[in-house]
């Protein structure tokens, strides 16, 4: 067998391992969990939206707001990674800068809470 195909043995082994892992976890939970199917539970899960009907039905505006908040805070985290890599050499001033940065984000979150957008009714 050439070296080229030997590389694919690793891929096959990885696929097999993945398959076994999935079967194993699902199998064990099947044996352990209580089975109590209700109408709500057996419907297809699609981010909480009712999957039946046409695609143009109304969605709560809340989804957008949650999505937006998530995206904004998620992306701000991008600035933490470069700092984390160089945290040691940046020392205390870097630490203070990052704390200010996070506190600023926290104030934004506080504003969102105060405006009531995180309340789900």
């Amino acid at each position, binding site marked *: 067998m050439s070296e*080229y195909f030997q590389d694919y043995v690793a891929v096959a082994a990885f696929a097999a391992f993945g398959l076994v892992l999935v079967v194993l976890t699902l199998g064990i939970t099947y044996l352990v969990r209580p089975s109590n199917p209700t109408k709500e539970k057996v419907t297809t899960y699609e981010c909480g939206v009712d999957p039946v009907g046409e695609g143009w039905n109304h969605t709560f505006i809340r989804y*957008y707001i949650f999505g*937006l908040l998530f*995206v*904004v805070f*998620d*992306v701000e985290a*991008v*600035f933490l990674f*470069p700092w984390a890599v160089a945290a040691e050499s940046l020392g205390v001033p870097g630490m203070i800068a990052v704390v200010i940065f996070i506190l600023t984000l926290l104030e934004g979150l506080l504003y969102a809470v105060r405006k009531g957008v995180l309340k789900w009714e």
Partner: protein
Amino acid sequence: MIAAAIVTADWYMTLAAVLFLIGMAGLLLRNNALVMFMSVELMLNAVNLTFVAAARAHGDIGGQMAVLFVLVVAAAEVAVGLAIIVSIFRIRRTASVDDLSELSG
């Protein structure tokens, strides 16, 4: 052995140029505001790709830094844009730009 082509910075630049043009075409030709946003994102990603490829080619960190800022600004802009669309949708019940003609340009 399968012959492997050397992927140079030019490949990335070409891909970025194509992405940018697709995004530009989408922005100018489509009239759904959401699709227009996606097109803008495509253009900004083309920019990011160019920056990263150039940074790699030059062995310089500046381009990668630029990408971080572009990413964050793009996310903030999408948030702002969606907020505006939601606001319009509440009044007009449409996301089509063509229906906006209150202000004659």
